[in-house]
């Protein structure tokens, strides 16, 4: 269906009158986009993690201008069909029961480990410092939301504790209390 041009990353919805086929096509496109867009992160950090909201904006901006934006629902359905389509490197996961993210295997654990390492090295870091350390080589705004969620996850699981100051929330490794 998708093979008139090689390689055609861009899917034109006008060509598809069947919704399922359309969803399948954009699923592949989103998957490819996310994989190539975060190739560097995957290589450097060993994982990819992005909230679906941010990916929605990025994907439409980068790939859909001119061929028609996809709707948020279409985006979600497309991502939900990854597994069925054999696209297995990225999976939908909900962090903290509230934010839907697209991530590679064990992404949450990998990022958690990294963040906890940073905090062990610099106790009392705040979000900005953590994200600067994490993105030392590439300052990408989209990660802030993910970092916030990962931090929240660490708090919920008792790995990190907080020191609330006017400067912001400062994070520490939980050294004294049992989880």
């Amino acid at each position, binding site marked *: 269906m998708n093979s008139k041009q090689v390689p055609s990353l861009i899917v034109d919805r006008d060509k598809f009158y069947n919704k399922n086929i359309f969803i399948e096509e954009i699923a592949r496109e989103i998957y490819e986009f996310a994989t190539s867009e975060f190739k560097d992160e995957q290589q450097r950090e060993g994982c990819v993690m992005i909230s679906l909201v941010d990916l929605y904006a990025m994907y439409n901006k980068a790939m859909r201008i001119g061929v028609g934006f996809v709707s948020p629902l279409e985006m979600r359905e497309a991502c939900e069909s990854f597994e069925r389509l054999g696209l297995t490197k990225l999976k939908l996961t909900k962090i903290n029961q509230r934010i839907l993210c697209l991530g590679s295997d064990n992404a949450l654990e990998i990022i958690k480990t990294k963040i906890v390492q940073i905090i062990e090295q610099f106790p*009392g870091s705040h979000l900005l410092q953590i994200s600067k350390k994490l993105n030392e080589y590439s300052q990408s705004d989209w990660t802030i939301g993910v970092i916030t969620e990962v931090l929240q996850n660490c*708090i*919920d699981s*008792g790995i990190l*504790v*907080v*020191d*609330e100051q006017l400067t912001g929330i*400062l994070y*520490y490794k*939980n*050294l*004294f*209390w*049992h*989880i």
Partner: protein
Amino acid sequence: MASAFPPVYSFPPLYTPQPNALIREQQVSTWIDIILQYCKSKDSWCMTFEGSVIDLSTLMIEIATQGIPKERESIFKNNDIQRAVPQSFMEEIWKKLVSDGKAISTDIKTKNSRTFYIFWKNVDSWASLILQWFETTTKLNQVVTVYELTQGDESIGWEFYGMPEPMMIHCLKPLLARNRATLMKDEMGKVVAIKVV
């Protein structure tokens, strides 16, 4: 001074009520341990809501003469790391101290006071110790004034020596419950003496 505290006392997150409920519970009990240890190390029976140990009579005098007690070193303020427990969290800690029976308001009837007697030993332990004192000093079946028990020569060297009288009377409760003690009151209804059998 700070060296008298456990390491956790220098841990900044100790001063922020932790959002994680399980951690918060342990945090509160860490505070309770710190408070009890502190009072014990200072030989102090009383602490203000704001976390200063204080001789109750000194406090009374200050309130009577200046209207408010003067500012004191507070356990809730750690100047070394510039952190302080917010008042709302103090409330939580005191609530737990009281419900655990490790502190009672110095105003035993109204429970309104912002000063607390601190039980760094629990009431039952104090009661046994007092019983032991009656046995050791062979005062069983004798009427002993509360003053004698808390301040008398024969109490020197006993851990409850110097304990404020209302606190002492509170510590006798387990003995009363077991019918091993009888209280004697003056015409004002104030407990003045005790007999242990």
